[in-house]
């Protein structure tokens, strides 16, 4: 376990935001060779199952079993740790060469239940105000391990982005994602995929060329509020988008996938009041939706956060969302269906 004293939270007064210092992460595993992947299963004798040349006396991986389906464990190099938050790794499969988009549909649905179970358990902790499920895919967004996996951070405070979404609720006089979804459906030009439970669209004011939001049709603050069929449809929508991204430039498409849900702190409640993640207590705001931020603007060109984005906070985009949506919609339609052989 990491010494909690190595993690320090400071508040940047000028920005009005927290900065998390986790200096032990400087030493974290960085793009290891395939045979030393810590997220692969452990072959009998110890070494990574994907290492054909490994010594049988090698160390076990993070998952000390010869096979598994989905595994969640405490991050060895945590950005947050009890009693001030949590950092977990979610390994989607024991297949090193799979991806979220190529998981069998049943595995993707199972993953929704895993996310939900972690939201329930972490959200019930007194030290966690916001449970954030996410995936970084591709070295372009800073991936350090190629094995298909995501992460979950339990923040001991409400981070700025979900706080902005709650502020948008106030500004629009109701649930902002509900309002924006109605607008997108009425316009139609930026919708790229729909099923019975979710709508995927490139937002009217997307920051990234191929940014897309997968939004529940009904107002569901979190995964806990979803019906089983909605979780299945959410997995379908997310996978359709992931496969469409890969089809777009016929290459593995880097992205950040961010699952936005209701805060798990009792927003507006008195100090010490009961928490709200698993009950009806407190004021539960938020609308489950999943945002994708892909850094590619063409097959070879990345969008960088430069002067205007970093220094002034204003994105400059080279593409119109309507154009991107038309291209992405076609890519999703042309993408192969899920490979049911993948674990």
């Amino acid at each position, binding site marked *: *376990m990491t010494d909690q004293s190595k993690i320090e939270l400071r508040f940047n007064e000028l920005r009005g935001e927290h900065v998390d210092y986790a200096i032990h992460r400087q030493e974290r595993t960085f793009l290891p060779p395939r045979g030393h992947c810590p997220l692969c299963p452990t072959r009998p004798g110890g070494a990574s199952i994907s290492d054909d040349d490994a010594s049988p006396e090698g160390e076990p991986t*993070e*998952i*000390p*079993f010869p096979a*598994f*389906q*989905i*595994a*969640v*464990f*405490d991050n*060895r190099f945590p950005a947050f740790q009890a009693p001030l938050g949590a950092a977990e790794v979610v390994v989607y499969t024991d297949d090193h060469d799979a991806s979220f988009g190529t998981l069998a549909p*049943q*595995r993707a*649905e*199972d993953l929704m*239940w*895993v996310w*939900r*179970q972690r939201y*329930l*358990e972490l959200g*019930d902790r007194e030290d966690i105000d916001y449970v954030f499920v996410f995936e970084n895919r591709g070295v372009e967004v800073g991936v350090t391990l190629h094995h298909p996996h995501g992460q979950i951070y339990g923040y001991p405070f409400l981070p700025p982005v979900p706080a902005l979404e709650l502020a948008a609720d106030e500004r629009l006089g*109701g*649930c902002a994602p*509900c309002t924006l*979804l*109605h607008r997108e459906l009425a316009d139609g030009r930026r919708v790229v995929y729909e099923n019975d439970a979710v709508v995927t669209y490139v937002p009217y004011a997307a920051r990234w060329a191929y940014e897309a939001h997968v939004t529940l*049709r*009904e*107002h*569901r603050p979190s*995964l*806990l*509020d*979803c*019906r*089983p069929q909605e*979780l299945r449809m959410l997995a379908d929508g997310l996978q359709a988008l992931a496969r469409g991204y890969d089809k777009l430039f016929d290459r593995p498409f880097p992205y950040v996938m961010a699952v936005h849900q209701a805060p798990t702190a009792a927003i507006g409640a008195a100090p010490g009041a009961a928490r709200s993640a*698993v*009950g009806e207590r407190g004021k539960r705001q938020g609308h489950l939706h999943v945002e994708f931020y892909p850094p590619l603007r063409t097959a070879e060109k990345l969008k960088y956060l430069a002067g205007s984005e970093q220094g002034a906070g204003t994105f400059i985009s080279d593409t119109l969302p309507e154009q991107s949506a038309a291209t992405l919609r076609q890519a999703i339609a042309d993408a192969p269906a899920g490979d049911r052989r993948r674990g």
Partner: protein
Amino acid sequence: MDSNPSGPPPVGRSAPAPSAQPDDCPQRYGTVTLTRQRKDDGRALILYSHAEDDPA
């Protein structure tokens, strides 16, 4: 769409707090069965399998 008149399903909220269960005792949650482990260095490890594959 600002309301959910039919109410949320009871699946998640009626589930017992997983942390109250002993390690190695499989629990059903939705479509998955989870089994808790503890790594040698004390970190938590949870293994999830599709429930139909694991009737326990």
